[in-house]
């Protein structure tokens, strides 16, 4: 949490996450090879590699895009989020193997520069059925590279959170390009109908999940707040689970109200690291622990425990009977606020 930069901030969950990811990739590739050679024994090795890595990349991209909305819909998906960054970088590497082998296979035989060849060997940009679909794959791969290359915390800190976030939203553009790459490619290649069916289904699920999760968020934001002398009513004490939070919106900002050790404290919901939702995390060892990468904050003052220096805004609470009220005015990040006793 911000003393020096590590290659990776390893911990036990991340190691397990990466091991599972690695096994998944190996099993997928081996399985793909076995199925291909038993159904079509004279497939060339290059074609096998291109197809195995291409389909693996699109499968991984689907999983990555589903993780976000799934965790918002149900907290049990949270472990998937934990090392999504490595998932993303590995997905890029798989796509890159597919892209590089395609370029070797189709664009290095002539005397034209391979990149020029991708763009100009087929100039039917007005056609639907003969569109140069590899161009779309190439552009998607560039975007995926941009994201993988800037995924380290150094970039988050130095590109500014806003730029970084905007950059990483480009994954949806990349996804659209890849979908077009596959479907327009299918006119010219013998793409298996199974793959097309699955990708179509996958895209539908992704759109549906995003819409569903979006509605859920809007509900939190528009939940009506009844006012009383400037205090906003949030919920009753029983609505908050021990060591967990209830989220609410004050003056347009999301706030998380935690219950722990018979006390209540409120902090701004947004983690200083990458904007993870603190209110979806837990209290671990007395600290609010961000569900995304485990940054910690003391509930009484919004500060990361020393030697770390991150701070989030805090809020005043009051309890009337068993009803929890919040003062929507935020204190400066790191301001101590006495927790209220239940």
């Amino acid at each position: 949490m911000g003393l020096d930069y590590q290659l990776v901030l390893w911990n036990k969950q991340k190691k397990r996450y990466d091991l599972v990811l690695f096994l998944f990739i190996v099993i997928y590739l081996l399985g793909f090879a076995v199925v291909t050679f038993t159904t079509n024994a004279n497939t060339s090795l290059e074609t096998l590699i291109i197809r195995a890595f291409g389909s693996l990349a699109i499968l991984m991209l689907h999983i990555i895009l589903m993780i976000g909305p799934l965790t918002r819909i149900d907290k049990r998906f949270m472990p998937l989020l934990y090392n999504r960054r490595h998932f993303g970088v590995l997905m890029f590497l798989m796509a890159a193997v597919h892209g590089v082998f395609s370029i070797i296979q189709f664009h290095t035989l002539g005397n034209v520069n391979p990149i020029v060849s991708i763009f100009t060997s087929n100039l039917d940009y007005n056609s639907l059925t003969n569109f140069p679909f590899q161009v779309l794959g190439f552009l998607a791969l560039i975007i995926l590279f941009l994201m993988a290359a800037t995924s380290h915390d150094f970039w988050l800190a130095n590109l500014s959170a806003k730029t970084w976030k905007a950059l990483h939203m480009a994954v949806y553009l990349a996804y659209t390009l890849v979908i077009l790459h596959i479907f327009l490619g299918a006119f010219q290649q013998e793409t298996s109908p199974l793959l097309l069916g699955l990708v179509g289904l996958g895209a539908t699920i992704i759109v549906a999940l995003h819409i569903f999760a979006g509605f859920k968020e809007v509900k939190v934001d528009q939940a009506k707040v009844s006012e009383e002398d400037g205090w906003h009513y949030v919920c009753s004490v029983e609505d908050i689970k021990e060591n967990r939070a209830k989220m609410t919106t004050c003056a347009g900002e999301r706030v998380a109200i935690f219950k722990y050790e018979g006390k209540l404290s409120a902090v701004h919901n947004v983690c200083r690291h990458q904007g993870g939702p603190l209110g979806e995390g837990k209290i671990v060892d007395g600290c609010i622990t961000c569900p995304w990468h485990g940054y910690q904050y003391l509930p009484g003052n919004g500060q990361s425990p020393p030697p770390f220096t991150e701070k989030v805004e805090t809020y005043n609470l009051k309890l009337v009977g068993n009803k929890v009220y919040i003062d929507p005015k935020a204190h400066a990040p790191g301001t101590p606020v006495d927790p209220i006793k239940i």
Partner: protein
Amino acid sequence: MLKSTLIILIVIFGVYVLIGFLFGLYFIFKGAKQIDPLIAESKFSVRLLLFPGTIATWPFLITKIFKK
């Protein structure tokens, strides 16, 4: 016409990557420390990991170094 436009765009892209590559060498040895002191205390392998990112984002990093 279409073909020459495409080739011009690809050449611009190539030049961008080439400058990024050269700037990246400077950046991992010197520039990174200038914009983020934490880098000086981190292992060298971290800087190598930054190299691809500098190729992609060099115009941004150059302006950042000049502003300092």
